[in-house]
């Protein structure tokens, strides 16, 4: 059940950023190019009557030919729900950080960086959060090879003289 007023606002927003609006299973979804994400989220946050001002979730997604950043918006004061998807290139996954809008997106962006290698421009402390610092590769990408237990080099081999 998507309210009509929210649908109108989202269609207006999509027209400004050349985005696509989809609706399935009662959820409204807006897909935009990664370049416009900061403007799109700021606008969604300030929608008149139906502000989507709470970032519920932020996650990465691997589609094979490109990556996506998925933002799940909601509000603490109303029933409005919105999903905004930002498309980014696979080879150069740079997107603006939203930590200036929601301070709490800090960890969520670090996780997306850790798992998908998404580079958040303007993030204050973009470091791996779950994996160790010298871990190589981005485990949640579809082309990441899961090695068998025997092959896995979890133990660091000591260099000579260490």
């Amino acid at each position, binding site marked *: 059940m998507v309210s009509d007023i929210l649908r109108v606002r989202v269609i207006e927003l999509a027209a400004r950023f050349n985005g696509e609006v989809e609706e399935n299973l009662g959820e409204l979804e807006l897909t935009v190019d990664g370049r416009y994400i900061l403007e799109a989220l700021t606008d969604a946050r300030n929608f008149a009557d139906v502000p989507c001002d709470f970032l519920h979730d932020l996650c990465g997604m691997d589609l094979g030919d490109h990556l996506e950043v998925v933002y799940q918006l909601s509000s603490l004061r109303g*029933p409005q729900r919105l999903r905004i998807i930002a498309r980014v290139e696979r080879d150069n996954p740079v997107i603006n950080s939203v930590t200036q809008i*929601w*301070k709490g997106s800090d960890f969520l962006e670090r*996780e997306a960086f850790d798992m998908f290698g998404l580079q958040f421009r303007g993030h204050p402390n973009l470091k791996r959060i*779950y994996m160790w610092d010298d871990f190589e590769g981005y485990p949640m990408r579809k082309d990441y090879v*899961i090695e068998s237990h025997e092959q896995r080099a979890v133990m660091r081999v000591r260099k000579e003289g260490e």
Partner: protein
Amino acid sequence: MMIEGTQEYSLNMGPQHPSTHGVFRMVVHLDGEVVTKVEPKIGYLHRGLEKMAESRTYTQFIPYTDRLDYLAGPHNSLGYVQAVEKLMDTEVPERAEYLRIIFAELGRIASHLVMIASGSLDISGWTPWSYCFRDRERILDLFEMTAGNRMTPNYFRIGGVSQDVPEEFMPALKSFLEDMPEMIEEYYGIFFGNEIAQSRMKSVGILPKELAENLLITGANLRASGVQYDVRKAEPYGIYDRFDFEIPVLYGCDTYDRHFIRLLEIQESKKIIEQAYKDIPAGPVMTKVPKVLKPPVGKVYHRVENPKGEMGWYIVSNGSTKPARVRIRTGAFVNVQMLPEIVKGWKIQDLVTIFASMDLVLGEVDK
């Protein structure tokens, strides 16, 4: 402000430390015994559940969901199975819906009891700890007699629950509900009304409302900062819209209120279970679902109110037997971020109390 001739030093707390309730590490920067900065370090319990989900079928992933918040197993699986059911448009039998609510709310009570218990233990209150664990044991017994497991029951299935409850379940549940008012009075008397507990916790670690919203804090921690928001009311899932219950809210924003709101929530959960106990119909507990589940292509985002905060399940199906993506948004993971904001200026023993009041469980933080 540093006194002349002294220097700041950093101290590692954890990952193996009794007050961090699991494998959580924090680098604490100290000026004497006053905390100037805290850096949380997580990932010691990271099992890669999201990656695992992609190589398992929809049904095979249910036992893993119990291991997220292992103190309240049923509610995690509830979120997952309901998300998949939404994707497949499956109807769940009435009796199963009621059993799910009973189990989920019993899990919430068990989780909050552990929180109150460990919170009191962190300020050296051993007796409240033993009271809470004594009563939690009865909930775990109820899980055990139904599903065979105590903390991770693996009871819910896509389309219902695995089996009906045994004969002795309902009388045991009834006697537990009857004893609850007395238990709550006991916790209040020995812990919340205690002078030492109050002076250690009141006005310690203030999390103002605006900061909490900006940090995306959810669950009981948000409600203790004066925001009356609960997914069970705002966006009722399952059959939560049939029950009459309140959302407790406190305005103190401090460590005491974050503990006390759990006690109030236990009372509301009790109300829900009592109504479910009264109304539960007879009938089947599992609907007919195909042996091999193949949800249609689509995406779904499903929110549930976990005891530790809001949990979100974003499931993307590509039409095959395995999900293309399972994203788990856990409340505790986001809630960790409040720690560095609210401990500044407090002493190291207050850090332990403040940490306990956040109610983190590392299974949920690290996924």
